[in-house]
């Protein structure tokens, strides 16, 4: 810590405290920086940035890295990729005819929204080198709103023309008409040394190395005073000294110098040196042979020149493979290994130095771009491998036409590979032994918020079943990066997270210029230095993305100058640099997947952003990029954040402060941003609201009426909330709202409001409160079969007597498809489809007889009728007819429907009351909804109380109030406003009972509260059955509402009946009402007889009939089939 303090004093400007101690002015409208920030790319910029990087930069790198395909058959043959590019999305219509498409068309027609990947190649045809341009090798699914998407940089008007909602964030893919999101994956960081303690209290320093070729993990473990290297390719732990020797550093002195010549290090390494001597390893060859023996046996051993050469190769490419080894110069790798050992040694004495795995500086987020690049590279390699196979096979053959590799390039491998991966979510890459499931999910379009919430979701790779609290608990380093409220309850709690509003995730940045800059700033290359110099006490080691860059004497200068250059725009804004004093090193990071966030820079106790800058921003003269460019604002990643002093607001700026928070409400995410006054609520309530906001119905998007989704809930009359937050405006929730402002009276009414039930005014419902539309779709395709037959649609069946269509068909048109506007009732036919009964047989010669068809009509299965909203007839990717019907139901709220306010207070409708029975106040207002006050004391949702108050004042004054987190309208001001409007300042009014007309004893707290109608409605859940279908095997009633199943009398209910001694009841419920079955039993042999005759005794002498559950009879028979004979002995009940 000593050195740390020293550094600090160096760091802060030596200024006269008084001079700069003046009060920092509050920057008016500082929050306007947030919309400016979001204006650039919207809420899902991280996805889009990542995909853009992949499409524009990384794919070129991948192709470059695999640019040559050679053949074993012909040494002259080659294919060389010169260039690769991805076009704009289109649809192929027949042979090589394509036309540009829009995402909406793909959604409707169940197509892929993808663009062609074209390459320019140079290859040999015969003995001629040929260059071909724009060859299609596959199709790349395109992320919406990415640089290749047709929607990028379009005005709202143009978007509307393409049937696209301007508020839709994009960032997802459309595969087979389904919107798929590649979730953000949280991962441990790579190529850094992590210090940990294992279960046996041994210190381990581990390093996950990842390069394009392979991923490995190298551990150095300190055990019983000795140090070992642990790696997958070795059977046992290897003494580290052996590794050094194998790397060609044979001299013990050199090894010790690399690790450190201080007293304590020398002492610690002694044992290990001795161990190596005991093993009789002194030279490099000996060490390599030793390692060769310890290596895990591989099944397919390719005999190489020698064990030693092979081991050298393995050392270079497998152990710490991210450290480059050029011409078998192991110097850098040895230094790195020495550093790992050194770290273990330090950590053994000082336990505080152990790294925290859950610290967000040690995490990286993987986005769509990097996942797709992994998948693409794998597929591209396989594509090339296949080309090579074809070349190997075909070149030796002598044919009339010359072998032309272009004719063998099939593009469906890459196309299908990418589309399948995205649509199934299974990411299997054999090269990295990677097998992940559930990487993608279908974008939930339940509400606008649920779609946004999904786009910002971060999935953790941790196993959900494990009961460890570490990764689940809130990490202080999450501040401002991940929303502290938005996480699901239950198994995913704390593992599934959401990004905060201003979080940015970096993409990879080229290392080369950074390296050059670092060397210019006084970093000395390690390769020319010895161990003694490297470990000098006065120097700091400099790392770039975990690799040793060199050492520097004046680390303070390096860090400050580097940061200065970054603020000047000479270094990429997302490169971070920070010193780690405890390890005496400086880390520079430019890798992708780091979380970072913009902050206002503070210099000499004054924020650089001034009021005039904000004014210019408001006028539209300045943009957020200008602020970055002028060095007024900079991005800090988690690690650098830890090295800065960030003031929460202007009033807290004092000496030593380096940065200022832009707006504190941005530390919440999208979903938590909806909650008004969240800082007044108990924290789990905000978490509950985050989950419920995603189930609220309302508006989905401006194009909702053009969509044909499987399920869509809409409110008929959605409202923008009376009490808004800044976040609501930023994410346009007020334009696509999901809820209604209900006038709520907090009081008790009847007994139907216990347990959070709500009382609703019937007149309010009559007038449209809570009315919702439920859209469902029905799909039908007319397939073509191999034998030239295909499905077809028949017209309605005409009743011969009445000459009218039969009842079942009375709503379908002459074309066999139901007409829009018709009401469909249960079991009515919507599409009268029939399919050929023979669809695999031989090709029908045509003339000989008609093909037989069987009816497979698409019918409506729901007891509540629906209306046909629209009918779409189109064709899908296989050129088959695609018919989509959109069904609509309008529902008014009923008892049991679920509602929730924005404070995690959900409740079902308990009673619907006539208007005249509702209490009314002096001005004759009766509430829309009555809420029981018992919901408050234990939930402590003070935010809701304030929302009501602010809402009431807003309604009276005709303006919106703000309930922004850590800000918003103040309660005193709101009370003052209420009083000025002639209302009670506490928001409580005198009410009269609607039933008796007498005044109520208490004043009632009443006003508007924003209520959401949740998707759980009684109509979709109610279920009862008297008799119905049974399962085939057991003859017991089926299970579940969808199969009209029975209501289960479960184990616990059974226990109750047993305890009560209700034996006849038990028999009735468990047997008679379920699967009673009469069985004949032969009393002689105890086996089951059949129709009064025992087949084993060959007699019907002593057969009697008893009733037993069919499942029991089944068990006996199954036992018999496995050679166990259950015999029944019957006795007369009365004996």
């Amino acid at each position, binding site marked *: 810590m000593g050195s740390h303090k020293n550094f600090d004093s160096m760091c802060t400007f030596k200024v006269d405290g008084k001079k700069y101690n003046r009060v920092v002015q509050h920057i008016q409208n500082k929050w306007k920086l947030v919309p400016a920030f979001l204006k650039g790319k919207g809420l899902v910029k991280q996805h889009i940035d990542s995909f853009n990087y992949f499409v524009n930069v990384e794919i070129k790198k991948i192709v470059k890295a695999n640019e040559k395909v050679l053949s074993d058959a012909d040494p002259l043959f080659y294919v060389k990729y010169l260039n690769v590019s991805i076009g704009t999305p289109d649809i192929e219509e027949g042979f090589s005819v394509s036309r540009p498409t829009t995402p909406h068309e793909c959604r409707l027609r169940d197509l892929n929204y993808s663009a062609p990947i074209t390459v320019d190649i140079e290859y040999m045809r015969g003995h001629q080198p040929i260059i071909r341009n724009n060859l299609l090798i596959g199709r790349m699914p395109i992320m919406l709103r990415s640089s290749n998407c047709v929607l990028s940089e379009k005005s709202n008007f143009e978007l509307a023309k393409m049937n696209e909602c301007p508020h839709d964030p994009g960032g997802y893919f459309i595969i087979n008409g389904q919107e798929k999101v590649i979730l953000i994956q949280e991962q441990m960081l790579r190529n850094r040394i992590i210090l940990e303690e294992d279960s046996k209290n041994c210190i381990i320093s581990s390093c996950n190395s990842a390069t394009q070729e392979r991923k490995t993990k190298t551990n150095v473990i300190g055990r019983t005073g000795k140090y070992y290297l642990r790696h997958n390719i070795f059977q046992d732990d290897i003494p580290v000294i052996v590794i050094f020797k194998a790397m060609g550093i044979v001299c013990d002195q050199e090894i010790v110098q690399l690790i450190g010549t201080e007293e304590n290090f020398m002492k610690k390494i002694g044992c290990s040196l001795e161990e190596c001597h005991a093993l009789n390893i002194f030279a490099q060859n000996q060490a390599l042979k030793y390692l060769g023996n310890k290596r895990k046996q591989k099944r397919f051993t390719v005999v190489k020149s020698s064990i030693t050469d092979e081991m050298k190769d393995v050392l270079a490419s497998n152990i710490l493979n991210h450290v480059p080894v050029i011409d078998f110069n192991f110097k850098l790798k040895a230094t790195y290994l020495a550093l790992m050992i050194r770290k273990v040694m330090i950590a053994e004495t000082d336990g505080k130095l152990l790294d925290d795995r859950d610290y967000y500086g040690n995490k990286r987020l993987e986005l769509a771009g990097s996942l797709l690049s992994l998948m693409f590279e794998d597929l591209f390699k396989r594509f090339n491998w296949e080309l090579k196979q074809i070349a190997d096979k075909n070149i030796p053959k002598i044919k009339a036409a010359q072998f032309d590799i272009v004719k063998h390039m099939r593009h469906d491998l890459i196309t299908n590979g990418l589309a399948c991966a995205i649509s199934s979510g299974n990411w299997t890459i054999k090269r990295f032994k990677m097998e992940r499931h559930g990487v993608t999910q279908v974008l939930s379009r339940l509400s606008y918020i649920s779609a946004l919430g999904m786009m910002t979701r971060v999935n953790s790779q941790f196993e959900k079943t494990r009961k460890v609290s570490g990764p689940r608990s809130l990490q202080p380093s999450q501040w401002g990066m991940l929303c502290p409220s938005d996480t699901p309850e239950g198994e995913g709690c704390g593992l599934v997270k959401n990004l905060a509003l201003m979080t940015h995730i970096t993409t990879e940045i080229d290392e080369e210029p950074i390296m050059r800059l670092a060397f210019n700033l006084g970093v000395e290359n390690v390769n020319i230095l010895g161990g003694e110099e490297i470990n000098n006490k006065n120097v700091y080691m400099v790392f770039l993305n975990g690799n040793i860059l060199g050492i520097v004497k004046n680390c303070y200068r390096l860090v400050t100058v580097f940061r200065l250059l970054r603020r000047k725009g000479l270094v990429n804004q997302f490169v971070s640099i920070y010193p780690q004093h405890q390890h005496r090193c400086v880390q520079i990071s430019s890798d992708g997947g780091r979380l970072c966030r913009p902050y206002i820079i503070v210099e000499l106790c004054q924020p650089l952003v001034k009021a005039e800058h904000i004014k210019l921003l408001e006028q539209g003269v300045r943009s957020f990029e200008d602020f970055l460019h002028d060095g007024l604002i900079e991005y800090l990643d988690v690690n650098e954040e830890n090295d800065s002093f960030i003031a929460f607001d202007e009033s807290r700026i004092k000496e030593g402060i380096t940065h200022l928070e832009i707006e504190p409400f941005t530390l919440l995410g999208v979903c938590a941003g909806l909650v008004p006054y969240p800082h007044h609520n108990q924290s789990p309530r905000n978490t509950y609201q985050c989950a419920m906001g995603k189930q609220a119905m309302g508006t989905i998007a401006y194009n909702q009426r053009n969509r044909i989704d499987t399920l869509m809930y809409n409110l008929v009359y959605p409202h923008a909330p009376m009490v808004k937050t800044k976040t609501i405006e930023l994410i346009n929730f007020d334009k696509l709202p999901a809820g209604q402002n209900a006038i709520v009276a907090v009081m008790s009414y009847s007994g139907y409001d216990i347990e959070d039930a709500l009382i609703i005014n019937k007149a309010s419902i009559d007038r449209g409160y809570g*009315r919702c539309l439920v859209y469902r779709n029905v799909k039908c395709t007319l397939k073509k079969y191999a034998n030239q037959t295909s499905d077809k649609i028949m017209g309605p069946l005409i009743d011969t007597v009445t000459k009218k269509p039969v009842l079942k068909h009375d709503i379908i048109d002459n074309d066999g498809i139901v007409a829009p506007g018709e009401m469909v009732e249960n079991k009515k036919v919507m599409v009268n489809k029939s399919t050929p009964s023979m669809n695999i047989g031989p090709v029908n010669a045509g003339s000989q007889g008609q093909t037989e068809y069987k009816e497979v009509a698409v019918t409506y299965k729901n007891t509540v009728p629906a209306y046909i909203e629209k009918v779409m007839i189109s064709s899908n990717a296989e050129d088959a007819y695609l018919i989509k019907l959109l069904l609509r139901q309008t529902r008014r709220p009923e008892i049991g429907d679920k509602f929730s306010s924005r404070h995690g207070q959900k409740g079902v409708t308990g009673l619907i009351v006539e208007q005249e029975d509702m209490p009314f106040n002096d001005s004759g207002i009766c509430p829309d909804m009555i809420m029981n006050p018992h919901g408050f004391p234990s939930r402590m949702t003070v935010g809701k109380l304030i929302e009501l108050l602010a809402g009431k004042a807003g309604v009276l004054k005709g303006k919106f109030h703000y309930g922004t987190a850590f800000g918003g309208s103040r309660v005193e001001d709101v009370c003052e406003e209420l*009083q000025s409007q002639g209302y009670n*300042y506490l928001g409580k009014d*005198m009410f009269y009972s609607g039933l008796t*007309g007498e005044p109520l*004893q208490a004043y009632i707290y009443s006003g508007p509260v924003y209520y959401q109608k949740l998707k759980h409605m009684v109509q979709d859940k109610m279920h009862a059955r008297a008799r119905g279908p049974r399962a085939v095997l057991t003859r017991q009633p089926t299970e579940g509402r969808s199969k009209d199943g029975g209501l289960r009398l479960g184990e616990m209910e059974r226990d109750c009946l047993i305890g009560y001694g209700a034996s006849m009841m038990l028999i009735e419920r468990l047997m008679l009402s379920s699967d009673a079955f009469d069985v004949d039993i032969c009393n002689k042999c105890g086996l089951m007889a059949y129709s009064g005759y025992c087949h084993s005794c060959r007699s019907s002498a002593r057969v009697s009939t008893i009733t037993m559950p069919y499942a029991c009879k089944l068990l006996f028979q199954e036992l018999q089939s496995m050679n166990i004979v259950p015999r029944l002995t019957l006795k007369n009940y009365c004996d």
Partner: protein
Amino acid sequence: MEKKQKTKPHIIMKEHGIPNAFEYDNLLHLNDDWSIDKFKETFQINIVNESENKCELEFDLIGCSCALANTYRRILLSEVPSMAIEKVYMLNNTSLIQDEVLAHRLGLLPLKADPRLFEYPSKIVNEEEEVSDQDTLRYEIKAVCKWNSQAPKDSRRPDDIYTGNNVYSRDIKWVPIGKQSELYPQGEKQFSMIADDILICKMRPNQEIHAFMHAVKGIGKDHAKFSPVATATYRLLPNIQIVKPIRGEMAERFKNCFSPGVIELVEISKGTVEAKVKDARYDSCSRNVFRHDDLKDCVQLGRIPDHFIFTIESVGALPSSVLFIEAVKVLKEKCKTFIEELDNID
């Protein structure tokens, strides 16, 4: 009069509640044996205010129990009949609004038709279209949106470039059925919409709404659209008693705690003013005096338990005064049936 009021018991409004609300009933009949004659004597109705269009009516009911006042309120809300569109026969609807939602919106439109001219629809559901001219009014809406051929070239305002893009209630036309055209020569006016600028739907070129509607007589209990009033309500007459004299700066503050016009400042001597109650009637009873610790104890807020300020806001089909009489008739009818039922017991 003043003296009488003072002796009368009050409902006391304290800072956090009404302590004597539970004995409300007792307050009314303290010295009581109720008789119809006595009631006739004391009960009075004063009409205070009637708006020009006769839609709003404010009157006082003095000297009755709250049960009676509340009964009228409840009947007005839910049992005085009015006409509203009940059935919509959609011929064509290519607008964005769904059929059900459009029907719901049409149903909520207030009609001018006098419900007294019609009968309740017969319960027996007969074949479609066959409705009686005695109980049904027929309306038609036919609205088409088109491009405006005379649109100013550079205009992009929807109102300029389209015609018929907004469908208002005035587009609904009455269609006589049966003998209605003879019975009601003024029908066009008599049965039109109350407000002709209610926006029903917005449309874009080539969208069309064509529907027939049947309006019937109904009561608010069935659906809020049949309720003839926007609201009917009453409140008790506020009463402010100044216990301790309030003078000077306090008086000004005191005045601001009440609705304007409730408290006046009287100059009692040179330079000193004292707050006096001018007219408590229009006080909103916000009880904001209780915010000031020094004013809290100077005043007693209360309400007169048998003085109801009744407000009726008619939707517009019938004047509020007529509605009240209708409500009385409904109550009368109910009483009659009740008495009949009682008579039938033995």
